């Protein structure tokens, strides 16, 4: 089971990296939270019943874990005590080449945790049905929310460019 899980994770690594980049954008504990997501995926893996695609299940667990970590962050004051050196945090993550990417990440950062989940799935070409399934809302509601979030993002990006 472990070997199979590692293979699947390696295959879908990109999903986890996208989620971490969005939810923990410029967060000094990004790598640590990535590990926590991996651990919780492994713990939840026995609950994966092949009823949906592995990537759909992976998205569901990883999004729930990320939202959960953020929700509980105010109960974890100790984080600030862990040294930056210990975590080898680069002083400047910003790269000019990735300007557009940074702008998009910054714009997504303005959204709520749930909106972030919806937009990641939309941008990753998931169908409304799949998004509705992962988030737990109706398909029609998904459509409405995606349009609203898209407009919000475009507005933020437009304002940033002006």
């Amino acid at each position, binding site marked *: 089971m472990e070997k199979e*899980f*590692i293979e699947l*994770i390696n295959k879908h690594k990109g999903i*986890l*990296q*996208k989620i*971490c*980049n969005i939810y923990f954008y410029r967060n000094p504990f*990004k*790598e*640590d939270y*990535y*590990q*926590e997501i*991996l*651990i*919780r*995926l*492994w*713990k939840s893996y026995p*609950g994966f019943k092949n009823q949906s695609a592995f990537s759909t299940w992976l998205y*569901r667990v990883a*999004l*729930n*874990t990320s*939202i*959960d970590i*953020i*929700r*509980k962050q*105010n*109960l*974890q004051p*100790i*984080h600030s005590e*862990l040294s930056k050196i210990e975590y080898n945090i680069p002083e400047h993550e910003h*790269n000019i080449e*990735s300007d*557009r*990417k940074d702008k*998009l*990440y910054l714009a997504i950062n303005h959204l*709520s*945790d*749930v909106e972030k989940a919806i937009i990641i799935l939309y*941008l*990753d*070409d998931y169908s409304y049905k799949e998004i509705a*399934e*992962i*988030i*737990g809302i*109706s398909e029609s*509601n998904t459509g*409405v*929310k995606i349009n609203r979030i*898209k407009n919000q*993002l*475009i507005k933020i990006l437009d304002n940033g*460019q002006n």
Partner: protein
Amino acid sequence: MDKIDLKSIWYEAHTKNDENIYNKVDIEKTIRMNHSKAISKVLSDVKLKILISLLVLVTFIGLMIYAFLYLKLHLSVNSIIPLTLAGLFLLFKTTSEIKRLFILRKTADNMSVKESMLFFRKKLNKIKSIDFLIYLIFFYLSAIGITFCYIKDIGGVKNLSWSNNILPLPLLLIFILILLFIPWLVRYQHNQSYKNMYSNLNDSANHLNDT
């Protein structure tokens, strides 16, 4: 730019993976861990706090039992009240740390995002209700017990002294009122401590409501 194509920026951003921090992570080694470094540190710290609080509480209770039951010590009310308050504080501190650990460990990852959020909110409210109920039963029974002892003069309650005088009734009433007030104070404290968490959950619920 008139029309921004979000998807093209997204694809552009993820075609070249310049994030190598994830490649350093050994998946096999990681999944053998209980939690990541930062989360483990948080949990260990909470556990340590629980352990210290429990040790102090047990020592305190032990000393009180030894003093009042074994040595049959008779103290005045102005000595009993600070001791009672100290005991209550220790009890409160221990239970709130246990509650914090319980909340930190509660997860529901296999559900949909909405179900997970609702599940967590339900659990948080359940913890609050159980906590409130325990304090309510404990302190209301204590208040009834003290009142009964005073009326029936069991254990010489009426003769307890306050600064060399007999315990005045208003002082006893104030003490009983404090006891009756504690469960509500605990509930208020819970709401304050988890204010951000509640606001995050309510915010998520609002975003997930049908339009």
